[in-house]
Structures are given as structure tokens and as C-alpha cells.
């Protein structure tokens, strides 16, 4: 092994890891679940290519099964015309003339009638000759020479020189190194990345993952129990990059293949790799700052453990220990290698398994050749037999003389037919997908209403801005149907990205789309006096929870306090709503709070900091020196602060007066600096942070103007303008955050609503808005609100700020909101399996919805964003009164107020991209719920407080669970790409898209479908297909008078 690695070598390895990590999607902690495209790293490729590559990397399926698509077709959800068109396109690209074979008929039958997942049988030995023999009932007659040649091909394809050495050894020796390696690596990750779930932490985590692991691994009993001897590998002082390079050299991986090898290693546990990737890039993430780790550490731990396991297997089983030795092993006896591959790879014919097993355990004297040849013939016969059966079954379904024509084909023609069928099946899923989308695009074009002639505009009773989330669509529809309400759709962060410091929480939360980083910080501060004493129940609960995490508690505490926990268990199970009401009463209520929205001046910031530091010093005096506030003067506190900040030196007046020694004073000052963070460095950090607090007046004007104008509202404001954020409410649900607002980075939308309302109610902001032609009447009040998507309730916030004259109308507003909530619950509850009889009455439906929210055994409290399909960017008039079944992201937009296309740019680059992520997260979680989704919730366990695993350990489960995607064993979410409809002139849209490279690549790469509804072309619906706009055939159905009137 060459141990003299240069800096260049190390940098090369690091850069390879960086590049290899690119296709791995980042995985955000579940507390702030971010819906993301699992193939985000492949978005530079066209959709079908990325799906193929993603399937290879992550071992998942990219499309539903043929049978499922056929069911959709029976339900009328597939455009048959489009399906046939795509089929003909395929055939025109694969011109093939086979005697007696009507290829279009064959493929059509395969598509719509053949129910098995694949007509092509996976196998190594089927070719035209073998197939022809079997079709005619003859045994396969493979020439020995030909057979040996093909054996070499098969072995070189399956045992790559640059393939993972451990996996190759597993395939040839049945050693299960990969499985053990994953198990050990997951345990190491759980130890290091824990975020407070474990009572005992891994020591030395602040040194980084690899170094902390290395320290522990040297004396890790768990590894010793596996018989692993790590010290030799870990004795060098080499960093993780150097270790990786050394191991790659030791495994004799060709240097050209290092990149590929690293990618294979990283994607093996892509959930963990994705989380580490997120962590290493999230600069604000507390745990990453405290305990740093990156993919290089992760890979180093994997490779060291892997090499150790490999060396152990070499000692015990005498297997080859590097890539070249494996190739040599295969070359030396390909027959033995093939038999081993078949047995340990699990593809052996079951009837031969014991024989081969025995032969490997006791090598036959005459070698493996005879046995292998006999086995291969049997295998070829079996594969060809299956293939022949499948083809004949298909031919029978095609009907006519198809079966006879099949039997009459020459071996070469048979080969061509099989190749064509294989090529078709490879892209069949994409064909189905496009044909289904075509159906739904037609549905949308037919549903959309054209703007009617301008009527006299009446002032609505209330206007409400809802998040674009699909769950807002039904409640908006119900609210509008109730009467004088006008609603708008806007991204749920209302265009204001904030870092939010919630009262009582220690860290900042980003409430904006994950692709943005907020510059401004909003702090929530209590408006009432804070009580120092913790309420009794809260204190008791703390004690109990501390007991739960104690190592000794199982021995002593179960009998003593276990009964107390059972009260909660019984309450939550028998009467969840009542239990939560009582529980809520026992807990201290959150005090009334205000948000610091206005920017602080430097003097204000300094003054606040001083006030906070003085309060800390007073608290420290009480706790450390037992001096009450009445014993200390303001001047003495000020002097102590100056000493702590090193602006003055002791002894202080207080020390002299109270007779403390110099040492006591020094200790106290040190405590102030370390524990109470009253020191110079911390002060400058805090000042910097305070500088981020709030928004300047100009920023406030900008944000409010943008929010209103982008939605097309600049006149005719009503008395109430509601800014409705949304959140969910579930129990015992690690995916709770996935049900919250995606536009708020998986957080709640209320803080953003409070911020924008605070800005819009500011008289100075309104004055400046008037200069921009946005006239907000004096009697208009912006009210923040929160839509609970689980219970359908809408709660109004900051009502204490409401002007007195508005209180007269408050009851009407609340009644309207409550009625809409109940109607929405009645629409939603039957889809969640609630009996129609119960759900029919809106009041009962609302009660049931509340129970769902409090029920801790409920695996599906709401459907979340399941079934999302459309994104409609335009006036509400397009879909007002249309039942979009809660499947549409609705974004209010008026291109007439956006001459430069800036608002459309914002919409396309943030909400539409977030919508695309949400849509594709759902798409892939449905098409392969076990690989791209997270499987069943039933087996999930929370890992380290940031993710879930299946069982007690597994890869981190990314994606959504089966309970969110499937109902009664069938997909509830129909996996289709987002269909975005934009109401604006086509050239204008193209111009804006052209300015946004990322969005352009998404649209033209087919990651979302686009329809442009062009008001200047008579509201023609233009569908973007294969990079070109095509007029949708149903566009012509529009009555001309309508669009002329509007234009």
C-alpha cells in the first residue's frame, strides 16, 4: 500500500466524493420535513432518462405496474388516442418487418390486455435459437463452445472489476458482508448523529464523525464481538480522505473507477447519505455546527468497517481480498464462479440448489465443469420455456393467426421480436404516464372557466389569502360559496422569508421555501409578564420524562411511577379529545406574544442587548451568590457587566461591599462569561444577530406590495383581509411536519401571516403603498389566521390588535369561517374512511375530524397533499365554483399587473419549484413505496429525533409512507407529473422562463407539464409537448364572446 499520499490525492478524493454525492437527494430532518424530488440530483437530465438512472442508483421502480395503468384505463383515466399515438411513434423509430406479425396489434394488446407485469422474462440464456427450439417443443441445444463464450460475458457483466468488492465476495461466497456492514454503519451513525434521543451520547462528537468513531472503534465491544480487529487500520493519523484513498488502493480498484465506486458506496444507504449531505450544507443547523460531519467521514467509516469485514472473511473463508483477486478467482474457474453466483445470488433453480450447495461444500474431483454445463442447460431450458409460454400467451391474446405466425418465425426474427418487445417494455411506463397526463390536461382545459364580462365591482365582506397548498382549494371553494368572500392563492409564507425565533424555543427556524435562506429574523416576545415559576404539572412532567431517559429507571421507577404513565395511555386511547382538553388545561397556556417586525436601530439593538445582559447578571447573582435583586444596585450590575466584557477590571463595588474575595469574584465573572454568555465575543455575535432582527420600512413596503400585486389585488380592499397560514395537528406522527406548510420549509404558516399583517397594518407602510397605486382604505384590517388542515378549523390570531369598530363584524366573520370549515370536513371525511352517514352532517364531520387530530393510533389523520396534480397560475375566475377535488395548487396572478414578468419569475422559481418537489415526492413515493417511499408506518421507529427507520435499524426512510399514498392496497395518489396552467400570453411566459435556467430545464426536461392559457390568443390552451406549444383540441370550444369581452 502506498502510504505517501499528497495533498493533491486527498483533495482529489474529496472532490470525487463531492461529485458522487450530487445525485443523492438531501434529506431534511423530519421536524421540518421538506417535500423534495427524490431525483433532485438528476434534474439536469430529461425525466425518462433520470428515472432510468435513478432506478439504477436507488434500485427503485420509476413507474407503476402495467396492471395498475390498465385499471386506470378501465376507469377512463387514460387518453387512448394519446396512447396509440405514442405507440405509433415508437414503431416509427423501430422499423421492423416480421412476416405475419402485426406489430402495432401486438404492442397494443400487450399494453391494454396482457395483465402480467412483464412479457419479457429476465434471463441470461434465451436467444432466438433457444427460443425457437423450445417453441417447437425441442430441447435447447446449446453448443458447448458457445455456452462457454456466453458464460464469460455473463460473468464479466455480473462481477465487475470496479464493482463493490464486498458485494462481489458476497455473491461468490455467500458471506453477507454488505448486510453486516450496513448494520454496523447504521449503528455508528445512530451513535453519532443522535439529537437527544439517547440518554448516553457518543464521546468526542465535536471532533467530527470519523475521528469520534475512530476513537470509539478501537475499543468497541460490539465490533470485537463480530471478531473484527480494527486497531491496525486505525493506528495511522491519516484523515478520512487519506484512509479512503488507501483502502481504494488496497482493494486494487482501478483509479479511473474510483468515482463510480464511491458513488456505489454512498448510494447504498442513500437515506443516511442524504441526511449527512443536508447537514454538511446547512450552515444554520445547530447539530451540524456542534457535531460536524460530511460524506467523506461517512464514506471513511464505511470503507474501514468494510475492509475489516473483508479481511475477516478472508481469514475465515479464504475468499479473495481485492478486485483483481476476485477477477482472477473467476477467470481460474468460471464454472465454479457461475454456480456460486447462481446459488448465493439467489437466482439458482431451486431444484438444483442443494446439489450445487453440496458441490461447493465438497468440491467434486472432476471439477465443476460437468455440473455447471448440466445446470446451464437446465437453466436455459427453464428460461426459454417461460419466455415461450409468455409469448404464446400474448399471441393468443392478439388473436387471429398470431400464434401460428409466432411459431413460423425464424430464430433471427424471433430474436428481433424479443428485442423489440424488450425495448417497448422498457419505456412503456413513460408512455402510460404521458397518456394519463393527456387525459387530465383535457379535463382541466374543459373545466377552466373563461372570465365573464366585467361587472360592477362590489366590495366583499372579507378577502382571504390562502396558501397555494391543495388543501386550501376546497375550503376556499366552500367559503366563496357561502357568500361575500373573495379568496386569493399565494405561497404560504406570503412572500416573506423569515428566520423565526419562537418564544420558548432556543433555535431559529427558517419559515420559507427550502431553496431560500432568510436574511431577516423575527423574534416572538411575550406581551405579558413571564412567571419564573414553572407550573406544577409542567414540572412534574419534566421529572417523569427525565426518569424515562435514565438508565436506572427501568429497575426502580417502573413500579413506582409506571401507573402515572398508564393514566395518559388510557386517556389518549379511550377519549382522545377529552384527554387533550384536560391536558391542555393543566399545562401553562402560551402567553400573549408580539413579533418584533420593525428593524432596530444600532442604539436600540445595543440597548436591548444591555437590558438582556443585565437581566442575566441579576439572575446569576441570585443563583450563584444568593443575592436578591433588593441587595444590588443598578450601578453595581452595570459595573459587573463591564468587568465581564473586559471593559473594566475588579474588584467591583459590590464585591467590596459584600466582602467577597477576589477569587470568588473571578469565579463569578468566569461563570457570567461561560454559562450566562455575558462576554465580548458573544456580545458581538448577539449584536450581529440583532442586526438581522426585523424589516426596514422599505422592505416592509416591498413585501406587502409584492404579495398584493402578484395576486392581482390593489383596489377594492374589504374590511377584513385575512392572511391564512396553515398547519396540521396530529398525534404520535413523525410525519407531522410533512403535513405542515411546504412553502414555510415544513413549518407552520401563522408566524409569516402575523408578520405580513403587521406590516400591512402599519400606517407608514400604507402611506408609501399609496405612492405605488395600492390604495388600502383606512377601515381595512389585515388579520392573521391559521387553517388547521386536519380539523379544517380556521383560527384568527392577534385579535387583541383589532380596531374596536371591526369587533362588530367579528361574529359574522367567525360564523362564515366555521360554516366553511364544517362543509369542508363533510367533503373530506368520507375519503378518510369515515362512514357516509356520519360524514354527511357537516357538524358531525367536524367533530370526527377533531377526533382524528387527537387520536394517537391514527395512521392517516388526513390525506395531506396526496392526489395533487394541477398548479393553476392565474385569476381565481378561471376556477371559481369549479370542484377541483382538492388536487390543485392555486396561485393568484394577473399578468396585467406584471409588465416586466418579475412576479411570474418569483412564482415560477419558488412556489412552482416547491410544487414540483411536492408533486414528485408523491409521484415516486407512490410508484415505489418501498424504495422511494418509506414503506409502512407500522414498522417505523424514530431515529435520533431526525428521521425514521424500518424496524430497529435500517437506512433512513426518505419519502412518504404507504398510508399517505395508498388506500385499500391501491394507489390513492395518482402518480402524475404536475400540470401547471399559466394564464398569460405565451411569448411573455416563454420570455420569463428563458430568464430562469433552472425552471427552463425543469419544464423542457419534462419534470412538469405546462399549459399556457393565452388571453391574447382568445384564451387558447397551448400545451407544451416535446419542447413545442401545441394548441389543445378543446381550445376551440370556447365561446369567442367571452374572451373578447375580457380582452
Amino acid at each position, binding site marked *: 500500500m502506498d502510504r505517501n499520499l499528497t495533498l493533491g490525492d486527498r483533495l482529489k478524493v474529496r472532490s470525487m466524493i463531492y461529485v458522487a454525492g450530487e445525485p443523492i437527494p438531501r434529506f431534511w430532518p423530519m421536524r421540518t420535513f421538506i417535500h423534495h424530488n427524490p431525483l433532485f440530483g438528476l434534474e439536469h437530465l430529461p425525466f425518462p432518462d433520470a428515472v432510468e438512472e435513478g432506478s439504477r442508483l436507488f434500485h427503485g421502480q420509476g413507474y407503476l405496474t402495467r396492471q395498475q395503468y390498465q385499471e386506470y384505463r378501465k376507469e377512463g383515466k387514460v387518453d387512448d388516442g394519446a396512447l396509440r399515438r405514442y405507440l405509433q411513434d415508437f414503431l416509427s423509430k423501430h422499423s421492423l418487418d416480421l412476416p405475419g406479425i402485426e406489430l402495432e396489434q401486438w404492442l397494443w394488446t400487450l399494453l391494454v390486455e396482457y395483465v402480467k407485469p412483464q412479457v419479457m422474462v429476465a434471463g441470461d440464456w434465451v436467444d432466438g435459437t433457444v427460443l425457437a427450439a423450445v417453441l417447437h417443443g425441442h430441447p435447447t441445444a446449446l453448443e458447448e463452445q458457445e455456452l462457454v463464450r456466453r458464460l464469460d460475458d455473463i460473468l464479466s457483466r455480473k462481477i465487475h472489476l470496479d464493482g463493490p468488492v464486498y458485494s462481489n465476495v458476497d455473491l461468490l461466497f455467500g458471506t453477507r458482508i454488505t448486510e453486516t456492514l450496513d448494520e454496523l454503519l447504521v449503528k455508528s451513525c445512530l451513535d453519532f448523529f443522535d439529537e437527544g434521543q439517547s440518554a448516553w451520547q457518543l464521546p468526542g462528537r465535536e471532533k467530527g464523525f470519523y475521528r469520534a468513531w475512530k476513537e470509539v472503534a478501537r475499543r468497541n465491544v460490539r465490533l470485537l464481538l463480530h471478531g473484527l480487529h480494527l486497531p491496525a487500520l486505525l493506528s495511522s493519523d491519516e484523515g478520512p480522505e487519506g484512509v479512503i484513498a488507501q483502502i481504494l488502493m488496497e482493494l486494487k480498484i482501478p483509479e479511473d473507477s474510483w468515482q463510480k465506486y464511491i458513488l456505489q458506496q454512498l448510494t447504498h444507504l442513500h437515506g443516511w447519505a442524504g441526511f449527512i449531505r443536508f447537514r454538511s450544507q446547512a450552515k444554520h443547523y445547530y447539530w451540524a455546527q456542534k457535531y460536524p460531519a460530511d460524506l467523506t467521514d461517512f464514506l471513511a467509516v464505511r470503507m474501514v468497517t468494510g475492509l475489516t469485514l473483508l479481511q475477516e472473511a478472508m481469514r475465515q473463508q479464504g475468499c479473495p481480498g481485492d478486485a483483481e483477486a476476485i477477477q482472477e478467482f473467476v477467470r481460474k474457474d468460471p464454472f465454479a464462479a457461475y454456480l456460486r453466483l447462481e446459488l448465493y445470488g*439467489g*437466482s*439458482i*433453480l*431451486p*431444484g438444483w*440448489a*442443494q446439489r450445487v450447495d453440496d458441490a461447493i461444500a465438497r468440491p467434486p474431483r472432476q471439477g465443476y465443469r460437468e455440473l455447471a454445463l448440466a445446470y446451464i442447460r437446465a437453466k436455459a431450458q*427453464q428460461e426459454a420455456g*417461460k419466455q415461450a409460454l409468455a409469448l404464446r400467451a400474448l399471441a393468443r391474446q392478439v388473436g387471429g393467426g398470431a400464434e401460428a405466425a409466432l411459431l413460423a418465425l425464424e430464430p433471427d426474427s424471433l430474436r428481433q421480436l424479443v428485442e423489440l418487445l424488450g425495448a417497448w417494455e422498457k419505456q412503456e411506463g413513460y408512455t402510460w404516464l404521458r397518456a394519463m397526463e393527456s387525459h387530465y390536461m383535457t379535463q382541466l382545459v374543459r373545466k377552466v372557466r373563461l372570465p365573464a364580462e366585467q361587472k360592477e365591482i362590489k366590495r366583499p365582506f372579507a378577502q382571504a389569502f390562502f396558501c397555494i397548498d391543495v388543501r386550501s382549494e376546497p375550503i376556499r371553494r366552500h367559503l366563496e360559496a357561502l357568500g361575500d368572500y373573495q379568496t386569493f392563492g399565494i405561497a404560504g409564507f406570503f412572500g416573506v422569508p423569515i428566520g423565526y425565533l419562537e418564544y420558548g424555543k432556543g433555535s431559529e427556524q427558517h419559515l420559507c421555501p427550502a431553496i431560500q435562506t432568510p436574511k431577516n429574523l423575527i423574534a416572538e416576545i411575550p406581551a405579558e409578564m413571564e412567571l419564573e415559576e414553572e407550573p406544577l404539572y409542567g414540572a412534574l412532567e419534566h421529572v417523569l420524562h427525565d426518569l424515562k431517559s435514565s438508565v436506572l429507571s427501568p429497575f426502580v421507577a417502573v413500579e413506582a411511577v409506571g401507573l402515572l404513565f398508564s393514566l395518559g395511555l388510557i386517556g389518549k386511547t379511550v377519549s382522545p379529545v377529552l384527554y387533550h382538553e384536560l391536558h391542555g388545561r393543566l399545562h401553562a397556556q402560551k402567553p400573549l406574544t408580539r413579533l418584533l417586525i420593525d428593524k432596530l436601530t444600532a442604539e436600540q439593538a445595543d440597548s436591548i442587548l444591555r437590558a438582556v445582559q443585565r437581566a442575566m447578571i441579576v439572575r446569576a447573582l441570585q443563583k450563584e451568590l444568593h443575592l436578591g435583586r433588593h441587595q444590588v444596585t443598578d450601578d453595581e450590575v452595570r459595573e459587573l457587566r463591564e468587568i465581564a466584557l473586559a471593559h473594566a477590571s475588579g474588584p467591583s463595588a459590590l464585591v467590596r461591599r459584600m466582602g467577597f474575595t477576589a477569587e470568588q469574584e473571578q469565579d463569578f465573572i468566569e461563570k457570567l462569561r461561560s454559562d450566562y454568555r455575558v462576554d465580548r465575543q458573544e456580545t458581538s455575535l448577539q449584536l450581529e444577530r440583532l442586526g438581522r432582527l426585523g424589516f426596514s420600512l422599505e422592505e416592509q413596503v416591498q413585501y406587502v406590495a409584492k404579495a398584493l400585486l402578484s395576486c392581482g389585488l390593489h383596489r377594492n380592499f374589504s374590511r377584513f383581509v385575512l392572511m391564512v397560514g396553515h398547519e396540521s395537528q396530529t398525534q404520535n406522527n413523525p410525519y407531522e411536519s410533512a403535513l405542515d406548510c411546504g412553502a414555510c420549509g415544513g413549518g407552520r404558516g401563522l408566524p409569516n401571516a402575523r408578520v405580513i399583517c403587521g406590516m400591512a397594518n402599519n400606517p407608514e407602510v400604507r402611506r408609501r403603498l399609496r405612492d405605488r397605486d395600492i390604495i388600502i382604505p383606512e377601515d381595512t384590517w389585515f388579520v392573521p389566521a391559521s387553517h388547521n388542515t386536519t380539523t379544517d378549523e380556521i383560527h384568527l390570531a392577534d385579535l387583541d390588535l383589532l380596531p374596536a369598530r371591526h369587533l362588530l363584524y367579528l361574529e359574522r366573520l367567525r360564523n362564515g369561517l366555521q360554516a366553511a370549515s364544517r362543509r369542508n370536513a363533510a367533503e373530506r371525511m368520507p375519503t378518510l374512511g369515515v362512514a357516509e352517514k356520519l360524514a354527511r352532517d357537516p357538524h358531525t364531520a367536524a367533530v370526527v375530524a377533531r377526533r382524528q387530530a387527537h387520536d394517537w393510533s391514527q395512521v392517516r389523520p388526513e390525506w395531506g397533499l396526496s392526489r395533487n396534480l394541477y398548479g393553476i397560475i392565474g385569476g381565481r375566475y378561471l376556477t371559481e365554483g369549479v370542484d377541483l377535488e382538492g388536487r390543485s395548487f392555486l396561485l393568484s396572478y394577473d399578468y396585467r399587473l406584471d409588465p416586466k414578468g418579475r412576479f411570474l419569475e418569483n412564482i415560477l422559481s419558488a412556489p412552482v419549484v416547491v410544487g414540483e418537489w411536492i408533486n414528485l415526492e408523491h409521484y415516486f413515493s407512490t410508484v415505489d413505496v418501498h424504495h422511494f417511499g418509506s414503506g409502512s408506518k407500522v414498522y417505523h421507529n424514530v431515529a435520533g429525533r431526525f428521521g425514521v427507520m424500518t424496524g430497529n435499524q435500517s437506512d433512513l426512510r426518505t419519502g412518504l409512507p404507504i398510508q399517505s399514498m395508498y388506500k385499500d392496497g391501491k394507489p390513492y395518489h395518482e402518480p402524475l407529473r404536475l400540470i401547471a396552467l399559466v394564464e398569460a400570453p405565451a411569448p411573455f411566459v416563454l420570455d420569463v422562463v428563458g430568464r430562469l435556467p433552472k425552471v427552463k430545464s425543469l419544464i423542457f426536461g419534462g419534470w412538469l407539464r405546462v399549459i399556457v392559457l393565452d388571453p391574447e390568443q382568445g384564451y387558447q390552451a397551448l400545451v407544451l409537448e416535446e419542447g413545442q406549444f401545441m394548441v389543445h383540441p378543446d381550445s376551440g370550444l370556447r365561446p369567442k364572446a367571452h374572451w373578447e369581452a375580457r380582452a
Partner: protein
Amino acid sequence: MEWILLILSAILLPVFPLSWLFNRLVDTAPGCWGRALAILVLPQLGILLIYTVPTVPLPTSLERVILLLVLFTTLFYAFRALSVREVTIWTRLMASSGLTLDWILVAAGKNVHGVQIFALAWSLPAALLLVWAGLLRQRMGGAYLGLQGGLATVLPRLSSLMTLTALALVATPIFPGFFALLQVFHLLAVSWLWPLLILLLLWGWNIGRFLQDLLFGSYRGEPMEDVSYGLAAGGFAVLFLFALSTLIWSGTWTGI
């Protein structure tokens, strides 16, 4: 003559090294039904032969040797079964591991009927499992587990039968094997119990592996036709009666 009878008995009621012949005999029986019959009948013949030997109960001088051989045999076959995935072979190894314990009853002077019923506690589930293995072979082409996981999803009835029968074979409580084993515990001195504890560990390990290979994982092969409801009901009925008989007598028939 006595020695010849004893040796013959040790072949039919397997004791190492003659147990090798017993396994060969079962293995060479034609078809799954033939093997099932062989594993039912051969031990019974062995027991009858033992009781034709005039010196039974066995002389005290032989007891210790037989005890050592029996305990070795039972542990050896349980250990050997750990590395086997073929259901037929696994079944006969596990049956050998259980049946050999019969000799402890013989040495303790139990009556012939008690010993015969004791043997049935292992040979009946083994016979059933050999039949199920035959049915599995008909469907898959072989009865080798672990190649295709998740057979329970594609063959739910046959997998359930195999699971319950295998549990009966490893002396899971409620099945007769469990009470039979209790009897062995009862007969042995405390200082000789440790091999039985190791045996329990090995059997537990065996059934864990067996069920892991049979039930878990996701099936990726061709669809297969499960056994008929009638056959499954018959199989469950036999197992139910088998377990019920033990529960009714609460182990009395095994001599406790």
C-alpha cells in the same frame, strides 16, 4: 443376538454414528409420502426391537455411554441443521435430533407405549413437514429456502402449514414435543441438564433461520398456486388435534 438387536434399534431410533443409516433410509424412500411414512414407521420399529431385547431396561453400565451418545447425537444434528436450507434435509436432521432422546426414556425404564408416543412427538410433525416440502417442491422445483424470500405472500396457506409444523418439530409449547422435552428434563440429573439447554438454544436458532427464510423478504418470482383450502384445512386439523391431545392430557401421556 442382543447386541445385534440393539444395533438395529440404534439405526432405526437414531444414535450417532448409526444415525447416518437412518438418514440414508429416510432419504432414499420414494417421494415425499414415502419419506413421511419412513420417518413415522422406522422409529416405531426401532422401539419395538429395543423392547424385544431381554436386558431392557438397559444395564447400568451402558446407561452412561448411551446418555453421552444420545446427548451428542441430539446436539450434533441440531447444529448440523443450522447450515441446511433444504426443507427435506432440515426436517430429517431435526427429527434425528429429537428422536434420539427416546433412548433416555428407554434407559429410564419407561414402558413401551410411553416411548412410542414420545417418538411420535417428533416423527409426526417431521412426516407432515416432509409432505409440505414435497408440495413446495412441486411448485418451485425444489424445497430450498432463502432463494426467494416472502413465500408467505405467494403461498400463504402452505407457508402457514410449514410454519406451524416446524414449530411443532422444535418443541414449541402447546405441541407434544415441548412436554416430551420436559419429561427428559425430569429424568436427567441436574448436572446433565446443560446439554439440553444448549439443545433448546440450537433449536430456537434453527426455527429462527427457517422462518426467516420462509416468511420474510419480498417475493420476486413467478406467481404460484397455493395448496387447496381442503388440504390446508386437513393439515391444520391434524396439527390442531396433535396439539389438543397434549393439552387435554397436559403431558400426562408423556409420563410426567
